[in-house]
């Protein structure tokens, strides 16, 4: 009996070591590809860092951060990024919830069919998706112009990605199609997991459909909603591939986003320090917005 605690401690230590060893492969990748780059990103943001090997990086303190707020392209990119976030996040959540509510009580085979249809753009590569949308939006032979002209909505072709009045909205529409798949699948699953007896009890007590949804289902799927809000927000903030492949931030910076401007600054202008400073600012914005979402969800 006397040596039982020490045996327990040895057992616990052995289990801990085994646990850490299991974690080690992922931990190495996480540290190597996420934590270290993150630290380097913050560190480099305080330097005038460029590609030139002949000129050493110069420590400039917060000068990169100060310059950001005087850079009209960064301000424009920030504004566009917020427009994308504030439009796409609510639309994705509401549309996904609506679709999921409509299909989650259907027969399994039909529900699976819908899930496949909505999930298809998610698993399709970004390049393939953008090539298709580029054809749809094409100024000269795009199907969208063809349809709208056929219906009499427009009388002249519109350069959807080449006109600063339409380009950002064109990007947002593509983003929505690639963003709703996962939330729909999650909502279908979450709604299916709501305890049916609670809903039935409410209905026996005279609750309407809207009341039973609002008072029973909605609180129970709140964790799923919170997750969807956070990942959609982060994805929207990090909108990059569509911009790079379709518009390069144009026309006239109409589709410039912070993520694309980071890439452009670092890889086209070779201003690594300045680009990393933007990355830090973007991370702070994402963190703040996510914190607000957590707080609101908690209060709800």
């Amino acid at each position: 009996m006397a040596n039982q605690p020490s045996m327990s401690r040895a057992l616990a230590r052995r289990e801990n070591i085994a646990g850490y060893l299991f974690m080690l492969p992922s931990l190495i990748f996480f540290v190597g590809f996420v934590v270290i780059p993150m630290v380097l990103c913050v560190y480099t943001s305080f330097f005038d860092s460029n590609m030139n090997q002949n000129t050493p990086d110069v420590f400039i303190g917060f000068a990169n951060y100060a310059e950001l707020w005087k850079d009209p392209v960064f301000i424009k990119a920030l504004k566009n990024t917020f427009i994308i976030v504030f439009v796409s996040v609510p639309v994705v959540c509401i549309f996904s919830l609506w679709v999921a509510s409509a299909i989650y009580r259907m027969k399994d085979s039909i529900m699976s069919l819908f899930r496949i249809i909505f999930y298809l753009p998610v698993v399709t590569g970004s390049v393939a998706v953008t090539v298709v949308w580029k054809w749809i939006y094409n100024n000269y032979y795009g199907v969208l112009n063809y349809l709208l002209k056929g219906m009499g909505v427009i009388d002249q072709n519109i350069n959807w990605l080449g006109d600063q009045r339409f380009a950002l909205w064109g990007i947002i529409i593509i983003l929505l199609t690639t963003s709703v798949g996962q939330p729909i699948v999650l909502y279908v699953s979450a709604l299916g997991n709501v305890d049916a007896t609670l809903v039935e009890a409410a209905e026996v007590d005279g609750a309407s459909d809207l009341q039973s949804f609002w008072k029973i289902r909605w609180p129970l799927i709140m964790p799923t909603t919170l997750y969807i809000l956070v990942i959609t927000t982060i994805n929207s903030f990090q909108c990059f591939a569509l911009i790079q492949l379709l518009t390069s931030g144009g026309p006239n910076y109409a589709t410039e986003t912070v993520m694309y401007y980071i890439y452009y600054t670092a890889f086209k202008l070779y201003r690594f320090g300045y680009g990393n400073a933007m990355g830090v600012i973007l991370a702070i914005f994402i963190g703040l917005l996510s914190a607000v979402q957590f707080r609101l969800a908690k209060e709800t």
Partner: protein
Amino acid sequence: MKKLLALALAMVMVLGLAACGGTVTSTETPAPAETATTPADTAAPADAAPATASAITLWTYPIGGWGNEETVKALTDAFTAETGIAVTVEYLTYADGDDKVNTALTANQAPDLIMEGPERLVSNWGANGYMVNIADLFDAADKSELNAAALDACFADANTAYEYPLVMTAHCMGINLNAFKEAGADQYINTETHTWTTEQFISAVNALEAKFGGTVGAVYCSGQGGDQGTRALVNNLYGGTFTNAEHTQYTWDDAKNIQALKELYDLKGIAFDPSLVGGDEIALFYNGTLKMAFCWNIAQQLNPNSADTGAEKTANGDDIVFMAFPSEDGNAKLQGGIWGFGIFDNGDQGRIDAAKQFIQFMCDSDHTVDAVRAANFFPARTTVDAWSDNPIMGEYNKLMPMLGDYYQVTTGWAQARTAWWNMLQQVGQSDGSEAAIKAAVDQFCAEANAGT
């Protein structure tokens, strides 16, 4: 705690992406080239030199057939058979090639050899300290045999060369001859000299627009792809310049360029199109949508849109005629394209020596003619007879004397290129007034000059 965790996770995700942009390189800088920097170095005793590497890597942009694996393999196999040095080739695209090379450079994973033009090899990677000085590869005979403009562009200064030129061409524009004839616009072109005046160009565009409606030519400006075409178009219309003669300042804010941009804006048949890059424009010209292409050269003339459907023909079988850019007096100054090889300094003298052997094999040997023909461009070495059996090349040779200043070696070239297409976008989205055009030109020219 939850909030903190969420904040930390969000930051990790963004910073992880952003940090890919670069590192502080001071501690990881490879040793500067201590060898192969002067001709005297090559005179060192052979037994003191490190052994030549048995394998090297080449990254090449799609320079004519040098973007085709089958074509390049035949050349590298011949090199391997003669020297025993194996060559691994990676094929880059202009869309993301620069990103790949820059990423490799910052990670000290650069290839041994790179094939592209002096605007990248000399002005960018060379100026930033990543290239080996290969001035020792140029002896007196080479200097006398190589085209003077190409030779000059490959040297950063009198004793420093970062590129060995293989091929060159003059960029031009292409027109759909059938469409021109149908619209009665063929009267404005001289198919013998391949030249026309600004006035004739304007008349031709108006005739085409009247016949076919809509856009007949596009000032593409979605990115930098093919931007040599739009620069040459604007500069030639009224005799504007892009840089000064010393290549120390960007001068595209001169009144002649503003006049040209205004003229292009006002032409109903010409659209400033920010949804297209040069490659897209070529595709639209090839399928007959556009009646003229500003992004054209001999490689396109030989194989339009790289579609293998016949030289000098569109997809519909219409005839394509190459033309110099229009200018007031009909004497255009064309943009030159120069391509060759440079060596990245990986700090391994054996690999550098092997790379030099490769360059000499391709650019200064009996095999040069094959390397030139693979590119579908003209040899930079005047003694190489690569195309005497090809009538299209012979005809195209009429444009070569029109080569203008090779200004792509001006400092801050990368920034100037991006400023140029952003400027075109702003002009295209403006109300077209001279004041608005001037404002856009001044703003972006100043941005370009900030990088010099």
